[in-house]
């Protein structure tokens, strides 16, 4: 191609103009353009659930759990609360479900929903006193809380102490496990994306942007932050309760740092502020860590290297990059 005569032209599609009207129904192409990004995760997950081997199905469970934690982290971050302690939500939900199953003998169909709600409430209660803290001060408290809970369990030997509680009821079979987590993940993704794009979500984002200005609009920001906190902790608590019944075990590892750090890495790699990006990040990072497993100890080195290269090369995150490209036309035009 003769580069002197042609140049690349780039046009951004007006997304708003195209999508918010009935005009989307004018052609199949238009409808596909709008629905493809939404259908992709649904169809993709359903296909994956069928074609994957037993081992990779287990990986998919773990990926989905981390995706939920990343979504939970993203919701908090968008509301101006940078959390370093998703393990708190995960662990609280896990222990709630484990104890209800072990001591009261309730089945998973009861313990998982209850653990989601009460785990969410308890975590919210833990963090309400520090809601006034901003930035790094809030983060520090969220980092410390799960570490404290582990030590309390270790020292007082409650809830099985260092041994944990084992022999808990499993979910009926692996298909129930798989489709339950896929359904919840998709519901969380689409539901909370819609919520964050509503006027309610706008208030939450406003708090992140400028909390005094939101206060000045007659809105009680602490009440809104509490609600966001409950939503995020309930998502994390569900993930914990679910994994408890998958592993049929709950113990101190549920408060491990992995559950706090990996969701943040996923959100950064995938792209913050969209929920979809955070989920995508989990779907890249967790399988990558599995693929690198044969490398043994060197795994972490390559994993770390990948993270560094990635954050430098695509700092906006995968999702933002794909989204931008999707809405752009590029073509070669003649230069006069």
């Amino acid at each position, binding site marked *: 191609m003769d580069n002197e005569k042609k140049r690349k032209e780039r046009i951004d599609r007006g997304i708003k103009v195209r999508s918010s009207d009935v005009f989307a129904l004018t052609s199949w192409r238009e409808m596909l353009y709008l629905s493809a990004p939404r259908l992709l995760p649904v169809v993709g997950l359903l296909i994956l659930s069928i074609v994957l081997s037993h081992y990779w199905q287990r990986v998919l469970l773990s990926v989905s759990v981390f995706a939920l934690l990343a979504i939970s982290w993203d919701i908090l971050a968008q509301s101006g609360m940078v959390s370093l302690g998703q393990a708190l939500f995960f662990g609280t939900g896990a222990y709630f479900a484990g104890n209800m199953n072990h001591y009261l003998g309730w089945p998973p169909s009861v313990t998982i929903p209850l653990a989601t709600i009460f785990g969410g409430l308890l975590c919210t209660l833990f963090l309400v006193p520090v809601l006034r803290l901003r930035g790094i001060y809030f983060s520090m408290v969220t980092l410390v809380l799960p570490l404290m809970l582990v030590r309390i369990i270790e020292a007082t030997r409650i809830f099985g102490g260092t041994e944990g509680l084992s022999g808990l009821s499993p979910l009926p079979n692996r298909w129930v496990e798989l489709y339950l987590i896929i359904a919840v993940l998709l519901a969380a993704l689409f539901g909370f994306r819609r919520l964050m794009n509503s*006027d309610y979500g706008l208030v939450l984002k406003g708090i992140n942007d*400028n909390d005094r*200005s939101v206060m*000045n*609009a*007659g809105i009680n920001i602490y009440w809104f932050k509490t609600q966001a906190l409950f939503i995020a902790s309930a998502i994390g608590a569900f993930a914990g309760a679910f994994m408890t019944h998958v592993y049929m075990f709950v113990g101190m590892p549920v408060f491990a740092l992995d559950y706090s750090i990996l969701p943040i890495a996923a959100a950064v790699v995938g792209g913050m502020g969209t929920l979809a990006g955070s989920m995508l990040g989990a779907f890249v990072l967790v399988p990558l860590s599995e693929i690198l497993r044969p490398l043994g100890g060197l795994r972490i080195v390559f994993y770390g290297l990948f993270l560094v290269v990635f954050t430098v090369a695509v700092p906006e995150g995968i999702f933002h990059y794909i989204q931008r490209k999707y809405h752009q036309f590029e073509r070669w035009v003649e230069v006069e």
Partner: protein
Amino acid sequence: MSPSPLLKVSGLYKNFGGVQAIHNLNFEIAEGELLGMIGPNGSGKTTAVNLITGFVKPTEGEIGYRGKNITGWPPYKIVRLGIARTFQMVKPFYQLPAYKNMIIPLYSPRVKKITGGKYGDRNAVALDLLEEVGFERDAFVAYKAASVLPQGYLKRLELAKAIALQPDLIILDELFSGLSLAEVASIVPIIEKLRQQGKTIIMIEHRLKELFRIADRVIALNYGQKIADGQAADVMDSQDVKNAYLGSE
């Protein structure tokens, strides 16, 4: 003056550590009045506003609004009573388009109460309000992100956010600072329109000429104390005010 003032500040003190920002401040404002508040830099004007709107808690003293003691209330409750303010340093949500900035005040419980829970299309209400303060609808200024708007528009946006709350008392903290003469001239009619609607307004200003043209009454502060109170001309004639601005011999 009407028997019960809209806002009554009595015996107000505020210390920041050893600094006395406000020292025994007393003043009243009647319904429908436009009160100007002047004073040299650091004289406590903005602190007075922060005290009235609840962003700062007073060390001592009382603030009454419509006969209700609102001292030490949190800002969001004070806004719900009908006191709205603008910030001297504009505080927009930079990421959002200008009209989306308006959604947050429009979402507040006060607006919900006034409109009986029916907001209507908030985007449309936001665009109407912005047009009122001078966002030209034809030029689509309201759709631009706040981060790219010039200072003049940000000040108007700040004003529109206060108006959106449908307040009875509006406190404008140096609305005119950093604006050109032409921009000030275009905002003055908006303020006059608010007065016709019966709103009470407190204006903090350094642009004395523009302020005196519209203010009913002016109070002057220095070192957190009121040093003059009355008609604009009388206040400027006061020896204390001259000393405060120019220094005494």
